[in-house]
Protein backbone atom coordinates (compact mmCIF):
# COMPACT_ATOMS: atom_id res chain seq x y z
CA UNK A 1 0.00 0.00 0.00
CA UNK A 2 1.14 3.55 -0.64
CA UNK A 3 1.97 5.74 2.32
CA UNK A 4 3.57 9.15 2.83
CA UNK A 5 7.29 9.25 3.55
CA UNK A 6 9.10 12.37 4.71
CA UNK A 7 11.92 12.76 2.17
CA UNK A 8 13.37 16.20 2.87
CA UNK A 9 12.95 19.28 5.05
CA UNK A 10 14.38 22.76 4.58
CA UNK A 11 13.60 26.01 6.35
CA UNK A 12 14.09 29.72 5.87
CA UNK A 13 14.63 32.42 8.48
CA UNK A 14 14.33 36.13 7.59
CA UNK A 15 17.62 38.06 7.61
CA UNK A 16 16.67 40.60 10.28
CA UNK A 17 17.24 39.38 13.84
CA UNK A 18 16.08 40.37 17.31
CA UNK A 19 18.67 39.17 19.85
CA UNK A 20 17.77 38.79 23.52
CA UNK A 21 20.26 41.50 24.48
CA UNK A 22 18.21 44.00 22.47
CA UNK A 23 15.02 42.96 24.28
CA UNK A 24 16.74 43.18 27.67
CA UNK A 25 17.72 46.78 26.83
CA UNK A 26 14.13 47.58 25.89
CA UNK A 27 12.64 45.83 28.97
CA UNK A 28 15.17 46.45 31.78
CA UNK A 29 13.10 44.48 34.35
CA UNK A 30 14.01 41.33 32.44
CA UNK A 31 17.71 40.53 32.20
CA UNK A 32 19.28 38.53 29.38
CA UNK A 33 19.77 35.70 31.89
CA UNK A 34 16.12 35.72 32.92
CA UNK A 35 14.81 35.75 29.35
CA UNK A 36 17.22 32.96 28.48
CA UNK A 37 16.24 30.88 31.54
CA UNK A 38 12.52 31.22 30.89
CA UNK A 39 12.42 30.98 27.11
CA UNK A 40 15.62 29.25 26.02
CA UNK A 41 15.68 31.73 23.16
CA UNK A 42 18.69 33.88 22.34
CA UNK A 43 17.64 35.19 18.94
CA UNK A 44 14.48 35.58 16.85
CA UNK A 45 14.24 36.34 13.15
CA UNK A 46 11.83 39.06 12.07
CA UNK A 47 10.32 39.42 8.60
CA UNK A 48 10.99 42.70 6.80
CA UNK A 49 7.99 45.04 6.44
CA UNK A 50 7.41 43.95 2.84
CA UNK A 51 8.15 40.27 3.54
CA UNK A 52 5.06 38.07 3.88
CA UNK A 53 4.25 34.41 4.57
CA UNK A 54 4.37 33.54 0.87
CA UNK A 55 7.88 35.01 0.54
CA UNK A 56 9.14 32.92 3.44
CA UNK A 57 7.41 29.79 2.13
CA UNK A 58 8.84 30.29 -1.37
CA UNK A 59 12.34 30.76 0.06
CA UNK A 60 12.06 27.54 2.09
CA UNK A 61 10.70 25.60 -0.89
CA UNK A 62 13.47 26.90 -3.17
CA UNK A 63 16.04 25.62 -0.67
CA UNK A 64 14.32 22.25 -0.79
CA UNK A 65 14.39 22.13 -4.59
CA UNK A 66 18.03 23.30 -4.59
CA UNK A 67 18.92 20.40 -2.28
CA UNK A 68 18.07 18.01 -5.10
CA UNK A 69 15.22 16.35 -3.19
CA UNK A 70 12.84 16.95 -6.10
CA UNK A 71 11.93 19.38 -8.87
CA UNK A 72 8.94 21.78 -8.78
CA UNK A 73 7.27 19.96 -11.67
CA UNK A 74 7.10 16.76 -9.59
CA UNK A 75 4.87 18.32 -6.92
CA UNK A 76 1.20 17.44 -7.31
CA UNK A 77 -0.19 18.97 -4.10
CA UNK A 78 0.72 22.02 -2.01
CA UNK A 79 -0.47 22.28 1.59
CA UNK A 80 0.29 25.61 3.23
CA UNK A 81 -0.27 26.25 6.92
CA UNK A 82 -0.44 29.89 8.00
CA UNK A 83 -2.33 32.26 10.26
CA UNK A 84 -0.66 35.32 8.76
CA UNK A 85 -1.57 34.99 5.07
CA UNK A 86 -0.63 37.63 2.49
CA UNK A 87 -4.32 38.30 1.79
CA UNK A 88 -7.77 37.25 2.98
CA UNK A 89 -8.00 35.97 -0.56
CA UNK A 90 -6.58 34.59 -2.80
CA UNK A 91 -5.21 31.47 -1.14
CA UNK A 92 -1.52 31.84 -0.31
CA UNK A 93 -0.82 28.30 -1.56
CA UNK A 94 -2.07 29.32 -5.02
CA UNK A 95 0.35 32.27 -5.17
CA UNK A 96 3.17 30.00 -4.02
CA UNK A 97 2.31 27.37 -6.68
CA UNK A 98 2.72 30.02 -9.37
CA UNK A 99 5.93 31.51 -8.01
CA UNK A 100 7.58 28.11 -7.63
CA UNK A 101 6.62 26.87 -11.11
CA UNK A 102 4.62 23.96 -9.71
CA UNK A 103 2.33 22.53 -12.42
CA UNK A 104 -1.19 23.95 -12.72
CA UNK A 105 -2.42 20.35 -12.46
CA UNK A 106 -1.41 20.39 -8.77
CA UNK A 107 -3.88 20.88 -5.96
CA UNK A 108 -3.17 23.62 -3.44
CA UNK A 109 -4.83 24.78 -0.26
CA UNK A 110 -4.18 26.82 2.85
CA UNK A 111 -5.11 25.67 6.30
CA UNK A 112 -5.29 27.93 9.32
CA UNK A 113 -3.63 26.40 12.36
CA UNK A 114 -0.80 27.50 14.60
CA UNK A 115 1.45 25.36 16.74
CA UNK A 116 -0.40 22.12 15.96
CA UNK A 117 -0.33 22.80 12.20
CA UNK A 118 2.57 20.55 11.25
CA UNK A 119 0.90 17.47 12.74
CA UNK A 120 -2.32 18.23 10.89
CA UNK A 121 -0.35 18.85 7.69
CA UNK A 122 1.29 15.43 7.98
CA UNK A 123 -2.15 13.88 8.54
CA UNK A 124 -3.54 15.59 5.44
CA UNK A 125 -0.50 14.56 3.38
CA UNK A 126 -0.79 10.92 4.48
CA UNK A 127 -4.49 10.98 3.57
CA UNK A 128 -3.83 12.46 0.13
CA UNK A 129 -1.08 9.95 -0.66
CA UNK A 130 -2.68 6.87 0.88
CA UNK A 131 -5.92 7.54 -1.01
CA UNK A 132 -4.07 8.01 -4.28
CA UNK A 133 -5.01 11.68 -4.68
CA UNK A 134 -1.39 12.81 -4.70
CA UNK A 135 2.08 11.32 -4.85
CA UNK A 136 4.39 14.24 -4.02
CA UNK A 137 3.10 16.69 -1.44
CA UNK A 138 4.87 19.93 -0.58
CA UNK A 139 3.91 20.80 3.00
CA UNK A 140 4.70 24.42 3.79
CA UNK A 141 4.45 26.14 7.16
CA UNK A 142 4.95 29.91 7.15
CA UNK A 143 4.29 32.57 9.75
CA UNK A 144 5.04 36.24 10.24
CA UNK A 145 3.58 36.56 13.75
CA UNK A 146 5.96 39.50 14.36
CA UNK A 147 3.53 41.65 12.37
CA UNK A 148 0.90 40.93 15.06
CA UNK A 149 3.16 41.85 18.01
CA UNK A 150 3.09 45.18 19.80
CA UNK A 151 6.68 46.32 20.25
CA UNK A 152 5.91 47.12 23.91
CA UNK A 153 4.55 43.66 24.79
CA UNK A 154 7.47 41.71 26.23
CA UNK A 155 5.28 38.69 26.99
CA UNK A 156 5.17 37.79 23.30
CA UNK A 157 8.16 39.61 21.81
CA UNK A 158 10.56 37.46 23.83
CA UNK A 159 9.03 34.28 22.42
CA UNK A 160 7.90 34.49 18.81
CA UNK A 161 10.03 34.55 15.68
CA UNK A 162 9.18 34.38 11.98
CA UNK A 163 10.08 31.44 9.73
CA UNK A 164 8.91 29.03 7.07
CA UNK A 165 9.61 25.37 6.52
CA UNK A 166 9.15 23.13 3.50
CA UNK A 167 8.66 19.39 3.86
CA UNK A 168 8.56 16.99 0.93
CA UNK A 169 6.36 13.93 1.37
CA UNK A 170 6.39 11.29 -1.34
CA UNK A 171 4.55 8.01 -1.87
CA UNK A 172 6.34 4.92 -0.61
CA UNK A 173 5.19 1.31 -0.99
CA UNK A 174 5.12 -0.03 2.57
CA UNK A 175 3.01 -2.50 4.56
CA UNK A 176 2.37 -0.01 7.36
CA UNK A 177 2.11 3.79 7.50
CA UNK A 178 5.43 5.53 8.10
CA UNK A 179 3.60 8.47 9.67
CA UNK A 180 0.87 7.61 12.15
CA UNK A 181 -1.29 6.84 13.93
CA UNK A 182 -2.59 10.30 14.66
CA UNK A 183 -4.21 11.66 17.81
CA UNK A 184 -5.97 15.00 17.43
CA UNK A 185 -7.68 17.35 19.84
CA UNK A 186 -9.60 20.62 19.75
CA UNK A 187 -11.08 22.91 22.39
CA UNK A 188 -12.30 26.21 21.01
CA UNK A 189 -13.20 27.34 24.53
CA UNK A 190 -9.55 28.42 24.74
CA UNK A 191 -9.68 30.59 21.64
CA UNK A 192 -9.67 33.81 23.64
CA UNK A 193 -6.35 32.97 25.31
CA UNK A 194 -4.20 33.27 22.18
CA UNK A 195 -5.82 35.64 19.76
CA UNK A 196 -5.51 38.69 17.56
CA UNK A 197 -8.86 40.22 18.54
CA UNK A 198 -9.22 42.72 15.68
CA UNK A 199 -8.47 42.76 11.98
CA UNK A 200 -10.82 40.00 10.87
CA UNK A 201 -14.39 40.52 9.79
CA UNK A 202 -15.89 40.13 13.28
CA UNK A 203 -14.00 43.19 14.48
CA UNK A 204 -12.42 45.14 11.63
CA UNK A 205 -9.47 47.41 12.35
CA UNK A 206 -10.38 50.94 13.44
CA UNK A 207 -8.82 53.82 15.40
CA UNK A 208 -10.39 52.22 18.49
CA UNK A 209 -8.78 48.81 17.90
CA UNK A 210 -5.42 50.50 17.26
CA UNK A 211 -5.42 52.24 20.65
CA UNK A 212 -2.84 50.55 22.87
CA UNK A 213 -3.45 50.01 26.59
CA UNK A 214 -1.27 48.78 29.42
CA UNK A 215 -2.24 45.55 31.19
CA UNK A 216 -1.66 44.63 34.86
CA UNK A 217 1.77 43.22 34.00
CA UNK A 218 2.92 46.39 32.27
CA UNK A 219 2.62 44.95 28.78
CA UNK A 220 1.19 47.32 26.22
CA UNK A 221 -0.95 46.16 23.33
CA UNK A 222 -3.97 47.06 21.23
CA UNK A 223 -6.82 44.90 19.98
CA UNK A 224 -4.99 44.83 16.64
CA UNK A 225 -2.12 42.98 18.32
CA UNK A 226 -1.60 39.40 19.40
CA UNK A 227 -2.65 38.63 22.97
CA UNK A 228 -1.39 35.57 24.83
CA UNK A 229 -2.59 34.58 28.28
CA UNK A 230 0.56 32.71 29.31
CA UNK A 231 -0.78 31.03 32.47
CA UNK A 232 -3.91 29.78 30.66
CA UNK A 233 -1.80 28.44 27.78
CA UNK A 234 0.48 26.70 30.27
CA UNK A 235 -2.56 25.22 32.01
CA UNK A 236 -3.94 24.00 28.69
CA UNK A 237 -0.62 22.41 27.80
CA UNK A 238 -0.48 20.51 31.09
CA UNK A 239 -4.05 19.32 30.48
CA UNK A 240 -3.70 18.32 26.85
CA UNK A 241 -0.20 17.07 26.16
CA UNK A 242 0.35 14.21 28.66
CA UNK A 243 -2.99 12.47 27.84
CA UNK A 244 -2.33 12.94 24.13
CA UNK A 245 1.04 11.20 24.45
CA UNK A 246 -0.52 8.35 26.42
CA UNK A 247 -3.28 8.01 23.81
CA UNK A 248 -0.73 7.93 20.98
CA UNK A 249 1.36 5.27 22.70
CA UNK A 250 -1.73 3.16 23.32
CA UNK A 251 -3.06 3.60 19.80
CA UNK A 252 0.30 2.64 18.28
CA UNK A 253 1.07 -0.17 20.72
CA UNK A 254 4.36 1.53 21.52
CA UNK A 255 6.13 2.01 24.85
CA UNK A 256 7.68 5.35 25.74
CA UNK A 257 11.16 3.81 25.82
CA UNK A 258 10.76 2.56 22.25
CA UNK A 259 10.73 6.15 20.98
CA UNK A 260 14.15 7.23 19.71
CA UNK A 261 13.51 10.98 19.61
CA UNK A 262 10.84 13.33 20.92
CA UNK A 263 10.18 16.47 18.93
CA UNK A 264 7.56 18.69 20.53
CA UNK A 265 6.37 22.08 19.38
CA UNK A 266 9.14 24.41 20.56
CA UNK A 267 6.94 26.71 22.64
CA UNK A 268 9.61 27.78 25.12
CA UNK A 269 12.24 25.93 27.11
CA UNK A 270 10.56 26.30 30.50
CA UNK A 271 7.35 24.65 29.32
CA UNK A 272 9.19 21.89 27.46
CA UNK A 273 11.48 21.12 30.42
CA UNK A 274 8.45 20.77 32.66
CA UNK A 275 6.59 18.54 30.20
CA UNK A 276 9.67 16.36 29.65
CA UNK A 277 10.17 15.77 33.37
CA UNK A 278 6.46 15.23 33.93
CA UNK A 279 6.41 12.55 31.20
CA UNK A 280 9.66 10.91 32.31
CA UNK A 281 11.34 11.45 28.95
CA UNK A 282 15.17 11.25 29.06
CA UNK A 283 16.82 14.60 28.26
CA UNK A 284 19.08 12.99 25.65
CA UNK A 285 16.06 11.93 23.58
CA UNK A 286 14.27 15.27 23.85
CA UNK A 287 14.94 17.96 21.24
CA UNK A 288 15.27 21.62 22.23
CA UNK A 289 15.76 23.73 19.13
CA UNK A 290 14.39 27.21 19.73
CA UNK A 291 17.61 28.94 20.78
CA UNK A 292 18.41 30.64 17.47
CA UNK A 293 14.95 31.24 16.06
CA UNK A 294 12.38 31.32 18.89
CA UNK A 295 8.87 29.95 18.74
CA UNK A 296 8.12 29.93 15.02
CA UNK A 297 4.62 28.50 15.50
CA UNK A 298 3.87 25.80 12.88
CA UNK A 299 7.50 25.68 11.73
CA UNK A 300 9.06 24.70 15.07
CA UNK A 301 8.70 20.95 14.54
CA UNK A 302 10.14 20.78 10.99
CA UNK A 303 12.97 23.13 11.99
CA UNK A 304 13.74 20.92 15.00
CA UNK A 305 13.64 17.83 12.77
CA UNK A 306 16.04 19.41 10.29
CA UNK A 307 18.39 20.46 13.09
CA UNK A 308 18.25 16.88 14.43
CA UNK A 309 18.68 15.24 11.02
CA UNK A 310 21.92 13.49 11.95
CA UNK A 311 20.07 11.76 14.81
CA UNK A 312 17.36 10.38 12.50
CA UNK A 313 18.30 7.30 10.52
CA UNK A 314 16.31 4.70 8.62
CA UNK A 315 14.51 2.85 11.40
CA UNK A 316 14.25 5.74 13.85
CA UNK A 317 10.91 6.24 15.58
CA UNK A 318 10.23 9.89 16.29
CA UNK A 319 7.31 11.24 18.31
CA UNK A 320 5.94 14.56 17.09
CA UNK A 321 3.60 16.63 19.27
CA UNK A 322 2.03 20.00 18.40
CA UNK A 323 -0.17 22.10 20.68
CA UNK A 324 -1.35 25.67 20.97
CA UNK A 325 -3.63 28.32 19.52
CA UNK A 326 -7.24 27.27 19.09
CA UNK A 327 -6.83 25.35 21.34
CA UNK A 328 -5.68 22.71 18.91
CA UNK A 329 -3.32 19.81 19.41
CA UNK A 330 -2.11 16.66 17.72
CA UNK A 331 0.54 13.99 17.90
CA UNK A 332 1.90 11.28 15.66
CA UNK A 333 4.81 8.90 15.21
CA UNK A 334 7.21 9.11 12.29
CA UNK A 335 9.01 5.89 11.50
CA UNK A 336 11.80 7.14 9.27
CA UNK A 337 12.51 4.77 6.37
CA UNK A 338 15.65 6.65 5.34
CA UNK A 339 17.74 9.65 6.43
CA UNK A 340 16.45 13.02 5.22
CA UNK A 341 17.76 14.17 1.85
CA UNK A 342 19.96 17.26 1.89
Amino acid at each position, binding site marked *: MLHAAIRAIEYYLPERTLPTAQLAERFPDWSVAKIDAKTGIQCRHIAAPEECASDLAVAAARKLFASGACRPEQIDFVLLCTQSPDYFLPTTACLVQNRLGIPTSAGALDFNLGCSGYIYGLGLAEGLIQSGQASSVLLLTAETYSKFLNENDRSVRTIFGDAAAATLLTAAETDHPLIGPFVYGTDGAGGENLIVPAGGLRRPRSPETAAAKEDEQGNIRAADDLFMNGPEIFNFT*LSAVPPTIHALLEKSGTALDQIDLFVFHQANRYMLDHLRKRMGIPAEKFVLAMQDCGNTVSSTIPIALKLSAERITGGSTVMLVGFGVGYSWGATLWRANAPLVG
Partner: protein
Amino acid sequence: MSRAEFLKSIDEILELPPETLQGSEELDEYPLWDSTAIISFMALADSNNGTRLSPKDLGACRTVDDLLRLAKVEA
Protein backbone atom coordinates in the same frame (compact mmCIF):
# COMPACT_ATOMS: atom_id res chain seq x y z
CA MET B 1 7.28 19.30 49.67
CA SER B 2 7.04 21.06 53.04
CA ARG B 3 5.74 24.55 53.64
CA ALA B 4 9.32 25.76 54.22
CA GLU B 5 10.47 24.27 50.93
CA PHE B 6 7.54 25.82 49.10
CA LEU B 7 8.32 29.23 50.60
CA LYS B 8 11.95 28.83 49.54
CA SER B 9 10.84 28.04 45.99
CA ILE B 10 8.63 31.13 45.92
CA ASP B 11 11.62 33.15 47.15
CA GLU B 12 13.47 31.90 44.08
CA ILE B 13 10.58 32.65 41.74
CA LEU B 14 10.42 36.23 43.05
CA GLU B 15 14.24 36.51 42.99
CA LEU B 16 14.36 37.13 46.76
CA PRO B 17 17.09 35.98 49.17
CA PRO B 18 16.36 32.56 50.75
CA GLU B 19 14.00 32.56 53.74
CA THR B 20 12.61 36.00 52.94
CA LEU B 21 8.94 35.02 52.69
CA GLN B 22 7.00 33.94 55.76
CA GLY B 23 3.54 33.62 54.24
CA SER B 24 1.62 36.71 55.25
CA GLU B 25 3.15 38.93 52.57
CA GLU B 26 0.86 40.65 50.08
CA LEU B 27 1.63 39.57 46.50
CA ASP B 28 0.98 43.11 45.27
CA GLU B 29 4.17 44.16 47.05
CA TYR B 30 6.25 42.14 44.58
CA PRO B 31 6.50 43.52 41.04
CA LEU B 32 8.02 40.21 39.91
CA TRP B 33 4.74 38.41 40.73
CA ASP B 34 3.79 38.52 37.06
CA SER B 35 2.53 36.00 34.50
CA THR B 36 5.99 34.39 34.33
CA ALA B 37 6.03 33.92 38.10
CA ILE B 38 2.47 32.56 38.04
CA ILE B 39 3.54 29.97 35.43
CA SER B 40 6.54 29.03 37.58
CA PHE B 41 4.25 28.55 40.60
CA MET B 42 1.84 26.43 38.54
CA ALA B 43 4.78 24.25 37.49
CA LEU B 44 5.95 24.00 41.10
CA ALA B 45 2.54 22.78 42.32
CA ASP B 46 2.23 20.37 39.39
CA SER B 47 5.70 18.91 40.06
CA ASN B 48 5.08 18.65 43.79
CA ASN B 49 1.94 16.57 43.94
CA GLY B 50 0.28 16.90 40.55
CA THR B 51 -1.91 19.76 41.79
CA ARG B 52 -3.27 21.62 38.79
CA LEU B 53 -3.93 25.26 39.58
CA SER B 54 -6.35 27.43 37.69
CA PRO B 55 -4.91 30.80 36.60
CA LYS B 56 -8.22 32.41 37.60
CA ASP B 57 -7.91 31.02 41.15
CA LEU B 58 -4.29 32.14 41.28
CA GLY B 59 -5.33 35.60 40.17
CA ALA B 60 -7.65 35.78 43.18
CA CYS B 61 -4.81 35.07 45.65
CA ARG B 62 -3.83 38.12 47.70
CA THR B 63 -1.08 36.71 49.94
CA VAL B 64 1.63 34.07 49.81
CA ASP B 65 -0.44 32.01 52.28
CA ASP B 66 -3.33 32.08 49.78
CA LEU B 67 -0.99 30.51 47.21
CA LEU B 68 0.06 27.79 49.62
CA ARG B 69 -3.55 26.98 50.51
CA LEU B 70 -4.44 26.75 46.83
CA ALA B 71 -1.49 24.41 46.22
CA LYS B 72 -2.67 22.26 49.15
CA VAL B 73 0.55 22.81 51.08
CA GLU B 74 0.13 21.70 54.67
CA ALA B 75 0.63 24.38 57.30
